[in-house]
């Protein structure tokens, strides 16, 4: 059971973005979200390196090397886009002007703690980028990630063992296996990858899940 592709995770997350939302796209799967704007809505995608109004990826072979996103992939600009310097970009991020940050994660806890910058392995050089600024500053944080590590270990856990990016910030998770809300009473699975049973999902999750009464299969 591999569940959704990276593109489908991005497409599913995009479907929840409301008209007019200002959404920062972090490194990894979140960068793909710019390719999926729900019909009839305008979403303003923000990239930490100084772009507001990120459009979809350019056609293969096209694109400008000075128009890139946080993942250093080529982007396009929407009409209405603006360019600004890095310090102003983080005024937007830290100052609470971003509605949602879509971030990748190494671990997310039951309480919404986020760990996505270091495994704590001293030999492995760390990299934090804008993750801590986004986690501290965006009005909401959703995580897009593979449900488990490559070797199958759970990334959704009772308590993060990796160094934290920020405490109690994640509100929702989109993985290849499920859509899960972080609620005051714990993690609630709202949608499951087609064909996946709740027992299977729980088995790949390192923290107790509840299944929403109105749960449904993920549709993309």
């Amino acid at each position, binding site marked *: 059971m591999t569940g959704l592709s990276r593109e489908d995770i991005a497409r599913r997350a995009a479907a929840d973005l409301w008209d007019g939302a200002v959404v920062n796209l972090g490194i990894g799967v979140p960068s793909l979200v710019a390719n999926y704007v729900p019909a009839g809505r305008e979403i303003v995608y923000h990239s930490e390196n100084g772009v507001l109004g990120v459009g979809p990826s350019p056609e293969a072979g096209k694109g400008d090397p000075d128009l890139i996103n946080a993942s250093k992939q080529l982007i396009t600009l929407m009409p209405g886009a603006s*360019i*600004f310097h890095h310090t102003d970009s983080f005024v937007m991020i830290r100052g609470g002007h971003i509605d949602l940050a879509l971030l990748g994660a190494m671990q997310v806890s039951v309480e919404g703690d986020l760990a996505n910058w270091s495994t704590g392995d001293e030999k492995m050089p760390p990299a934090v980028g804008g993750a801590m600024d986004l986690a501290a500053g965006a009005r909401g944080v959703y995580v897009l990630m593979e449900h488990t590590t490559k070797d199958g270990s759970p990334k959704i856990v009772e308590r993060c063992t990796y160094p934290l990016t920020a405490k109690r910030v994640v509100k929702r998770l989109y993985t290849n296996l499920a859509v899960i809300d972080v609620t005051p009473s714990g993690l609630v699975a709202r949608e499951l990858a087609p064909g996946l049973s709740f027992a299977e999902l729980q088995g790949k999750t390192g923290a107790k899940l509840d299944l929403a009464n109105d749960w449904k299969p993920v549709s993309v």
Partner: protein
Amino acid sequence: MINKLVASMAEALKDVKDGSVVLIAGFGNSGIPVELIDGLIEQGAKDLTVVSNNAGSGRTDVAKLLGTGRVRKLVCSYPRTSGSVVFEEMYSAGKLELELVPQGTLSERMRAAAAGLGGFYTPTAAGTKLAEGKESRMIDGREYVLEKPLKGDVALVKAERADRWGNLTFRLAARNFGPTMAAAADLAVVQAREIVELGAIEPELVVTPGIFVDRIVHVPTPKQAGTP
């Protein structure tokens, strides 16, 4: 669809509450959002704290707002200028509280609010009367004063050009406090001389990105402050 353009001044200023902190852009008579100020007077909110570099001259715009008696407190760097008669009347009659803030500190405090910072240490005013009662500390042998962010509930800003996402450009030195105030308020209300199609402002040339702007009202022939 994102459309921050509103049809009327009343709509632009609806729900400005009594007790609001109102940031008003402008320096001298340049960049003063005269029509928005008139709109705010019409709207009627009272018990306001107004943040503005000057206090107006004559009896129009900022001075007119002060004259309504609806401003409880003025946060300002240079309230007393030639012609600041209304300010002087209100101040000497004890009808207006004044918080005098050095101009750069005023601007930086609003920027700190916009940027989500909890405060900053500035050398400005260290050791002077304007630093009294404030925390200060020595950093690398120099004295700094701790200043707190200054956030607005509402900002009133005059722009030259706007699109429906709220991207703005400004006219010459009328830019002054506009970009900082728009970013520092929960509700940034902008009057723009010209409304252009989305995409008409080149991305590199946007001065205030739309993320900082909430409502735009079209004022095609804005009055310059200080003119009758």
